[in-house]
């Protein structure tokens, strides 16, 4: 067995829904296209589809769990919609090893929806960007992050953290996050 090629194909099958579907429709075509010998291809074609799907779904579940932890207030505000939106945001994207890349992808999707007025409530995008700013500024290297918001995002976050209903106020707000290498993070919001 050519282990490196087999593992590379498995890694893609575990993380790529489209390739997985294609593989189970035509395993020989996919495996040979991705560099497996005919011998290894025939062996791998015997893989159990149910097991493969179970593993792939567990990976998605794990990514959703990490994204919920990265964006806890956004997750609370979106409720049941969180997982569906995350799946849409990361569709076709393998995990890149950075645990917060999926959270960033979700925020990008919410911003697209916001631009098209396709997401309710509108303040959810500000909230997600607010939470993501802490992640962006928390990386090991020095960080300086500037964000502008349409709503009073601090009040929204505080209400959600207390488990209260959110009564969002439109208020132009700016945020600054600064952190020296491996040092303490400082941040502040300015309302206008």
């Amino acid at each position, binding site marked *: 067995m050519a*282990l490196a090629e087999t593992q590379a194909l498995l890694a893609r099958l575990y993380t790529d829904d489209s390739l997985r579907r294609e593989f189970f429709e035509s395993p020989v075509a996919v495996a040979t296209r991705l560099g497996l010998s005919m011998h290894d291809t025939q062996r791998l074609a015997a893989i159990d589809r149910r097991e493969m799907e179970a593993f792939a779904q567990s990976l998605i579940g794990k990514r959703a769990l990490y994204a919920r932890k990265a964006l806890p207030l956004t997750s609370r505000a979106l409720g049941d919609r969180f997982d569906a939106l995350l799946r849409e945001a990361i569709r076709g994207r*393998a995990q890149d090893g950075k645990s917060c890349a999926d959270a960033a992808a979700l925020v990008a999707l919410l911003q697209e929806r916001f631009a098209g007025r396709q997401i309710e409530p509108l303040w959810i995008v500000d909230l997600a960007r607010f939470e993501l700013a802490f992640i962006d500024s928390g990386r090991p290297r020095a960080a300086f992050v500037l964000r502008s918001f349409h709503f009073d995002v601090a009040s929204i976050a505080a209400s959600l953290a207390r488990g209260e209903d959110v009564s969002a106020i439109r208020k132009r707000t700016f945020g600054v996050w600064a952190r020296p290498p491996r*040092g303490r993070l400082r941040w502040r919001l300015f309302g206008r």
Partner: protein
Amino acid sequence: MAAIETPTLGSGLGYRPQFRADLFAHREEVDFLEIVADHYLDAPREKLDELDLLKSHFPLVAHGLDLSIGGAEGLDTRYLDKTAAVIERIDPPWWSEHLCFTRAGGVSIGHLASLPYTQETIDVVARNVERVRSRIRTPLILENVTCVVRVPGGEMEEAEFLSRTLEATGCGWLCDVANLHVNATNFGYDLEAEFERWPWDRLVQIHYAGGRERNGWLIDSHDAATSEAVWTLYDRIVARAPVKGAVLERDEQIPPFRALAEEVARARATLVEHGRWR
């Protein structure tokens, strides 16, 4: 002869920051801690201070998640260097990784993927372990993982694969009792009947945890109390194997600390009963 010469640590707990305050309030109820090395890679100063604080109050061992020791492409040198820095900082008697692969072909899988049970895989693991040893002198022990996808082309069963891998690498075994139970249940083999096929003499540490059932599969989700089936297996293993330490893993739905401490106490009682701990 023991797989590695090391002190016995007793009944420990996988450290999670959520219960830090309770842990320090009940220090005497936990003999040692296992930290997840990955949580301290690229860590800010506050996080490293936490590590130093833990080290000054508890014996520590380290547990890695993403080394991909079974990866045929070799190891990620930067990841290895960062792991080495964490291990040097806490100077544990041993550290552990999973016998699996987590990345290949430029894709990070994001979880522990099963290896094909072949001699070629054993050779790859042995080569990677040698590479690790050239960077980290602390003894490495390898953990059996939950198998979800059985890779076709296997030349042996899991027990033989594990035994031969430990023999080829000279590593000790971190026996995850819950993973043994999950694999046996999901794939319908009789662990009781095949008990002696596992490399008990190489065992150094135990993991135990609770999981859940989803769509007819047992999942090693670390989000529930340890099941009685796992406790029964744990008791049998402790009676049979030279265990140096047992660690409760709990990652989600973390209960009040009292419940964790009770599980740690139950694990300790079995260690004491079989002369594995004072």
